[in-house]
């Protein structure tokens, strides 16, 4: 009797599970996976003046498909130094911004992790709060601060630190300020999550064994926080490579980043194959960091589960 009930229940449960997991998988397949295949397809098509502005990948001849694969989209990307330069510039901007976020964010995360219990949640709230306000408006705020005769310029003049107004906006400086400002919480939160779990007994042991605080930090805290550093750095690096809003509002006008390049090719030049080619190249660049990030996060989850048990 009991066995029969079990048999009757099991298939139902199984089907229910398939539905629960199936709906989001189906949704994401249609709205996340298939779109990439379309981008890939169009990147190999030929541009033409039509709606939509690309030629079909296959033409039908006597009932048989004839492939018309064009590499012209990619040809531009590899021969025109403009593309290569903006590709390298984007990687450099992302790498330098990640480094700045790490240098600024690490001590902040460390201070929060070592703060008293009552302070900690308040400080974390202060870090997370900007997330909830508009990203665009926070970037915009820097225009007012950095523009010629803006707040920072006037302050520096007033303090006699500079004699003449200096150009801060639309430089590499303003670009880095905007990126570090926007992505700093993405670095601090995973670092905090890591640092908070550290066992202070290890530091005490190091001190007992005669290690100076700085040595103890270098040899105990820092190695333990590598997963947090990795997660935070990847969370900053990956989206910054394709960043569009910050370079458009704060960045240089003579050197554009790859995300802006994609957008310009698409909207201004209406060259869909080249825009798709740029997207594929960004993805190729980011595939390794994205896989690394997933591995870091999975390991983190496993550690958390292991310590819970």
């Amino acid at each position: 009797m009991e066995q029969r009930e079990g048999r009757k229940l099991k298939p139902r449960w199984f089907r229910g599970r398939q539905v629960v997991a199936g709906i989001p998988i189906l949704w994401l397949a249609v709205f996340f996976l298939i779109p990439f295949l379309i981008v890939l397809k169009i990147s190999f098509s030929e541009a033409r003046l039509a709606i939509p502005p690309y030629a079909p990948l296959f033409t039908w001849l006597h009932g048989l498909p004839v492939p018309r694969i064009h590499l012209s989209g990619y040809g531009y990307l590899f021969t025109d130094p403009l593309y290569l330069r903006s590709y390298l510039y984007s990687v450099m901007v992302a790498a330098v911004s990640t480094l700045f976020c790490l240098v600024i964010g690490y001590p902040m995360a460390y201070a929060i992790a070592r703060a008293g219990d009552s302070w900690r949640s308040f400080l974390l709230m202060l870090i997370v709060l900007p997330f909830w306000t508009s990203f665009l408006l926070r970037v915009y705020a820097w225009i007012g601060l950095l523009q010629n005769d803006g707040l920072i310029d006037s302050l520096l003049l007033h303090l006699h630190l500079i004699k003449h107004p200096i150009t801060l906006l639309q430089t590499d400086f303003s670009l880095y300020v905007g990126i570090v400002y926007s992505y700093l919480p993405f670095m601090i939160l995973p670092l905090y999550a890591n640092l908070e779990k550290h066992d202070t007994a290890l530091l005490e042991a190091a001190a007992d064994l005669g290690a100076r605080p700085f040595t103890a930090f270098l040899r105990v805290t820092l190695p333990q926080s590598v997963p947090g550093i990795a997660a935070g750095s990847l969370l900053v690096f990956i989206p910054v490579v394709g960043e569009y809003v910050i370079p458009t509002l704060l960045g240089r006008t003579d050197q554009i980043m790859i995300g802006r390049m994609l957008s310009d090719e698409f909207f201004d030049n209406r060259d869909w194959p080249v825009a798709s080619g740029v997207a594929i190249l960004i993805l190729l660049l980011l595939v390794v960091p994205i896989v690394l990030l997933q591995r870091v996060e999975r390991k983190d989850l496993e550690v958390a589960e292991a310590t819970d048990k």
Partner: protein
Amino acid sequence: MRSRGVFSRTALVLGLVFLYVPILSMIVYSFNNSRLVTVWDAAHSPTLKWYGVLLSDGEVLDAAWLSLRVAICAATASAVLGTLAGMALARFGAFRGRSLLVGMTTAPIVMPEVISGLSLLLLFVALEQAIGWPRGMGAVTITLAHISFCMAYVTVVIQSRLAGFDESLEEAAQDLGARPAKVFWRITLPLILPGVLAGWLLAFTLSWDDLVISQFVAGPGSSTLPMVIFSKVRLGVSPDVNALATLMVSVVASGVVVATVWMRHRLRRRERDAQLAAAANL
């Protein structure tokens, strides 16, 4: 030990100043009478002039109304989809398609927005060619695009919420004969409801805030609020945007204060209940 504590604390304070000075500067200058952000017109400030300009700007109001409708629909749909995905990832163990689901829910979070936007637009164009739907770009395509990236965030929130609870309650209900659907409605959902709410709010904020993806999938004539703001600020500082920023910051800040007070209240009530229960046991 002590010296490093001082160093990291100083860094924390400076970092927080860095995070908040731009926001505060927008709030202060929203009350400035002068059109120039650099000049503080002390004679005529503070003034609410820019709030009046903002609230009589039809383009801004239309865009805000569109953004609000899109954000509510997108947040609700992605809360449902994200809860399903989070349930599957946290409770089903190994199943076919699991790694696919993991990949598809983590990748959109870090994916550069220009790529998501481009790929979704190309999907909609291809769909329109193939099946005649959607007819042109607009509120529908913006909402669909927002659901796809918001649900990834909701999934993460739900998954971590579920990971915090062990399955014993659900197993007990099942042992008592409850069907899986009943277990979900009576046990699991009430447990993760705060997570679902947090996920909904996060999705709402992300959708309300999104510029790049909307720009790709919005048709002519359907501009969301960030799109209108972007076209204004590309031409330089405009003081009514400061007023808008101040309004948005005030809403968020009061929401956070209310949520914090409410959570403290709940926590205190739970502690009191626990004390009463302990007293009753004696």
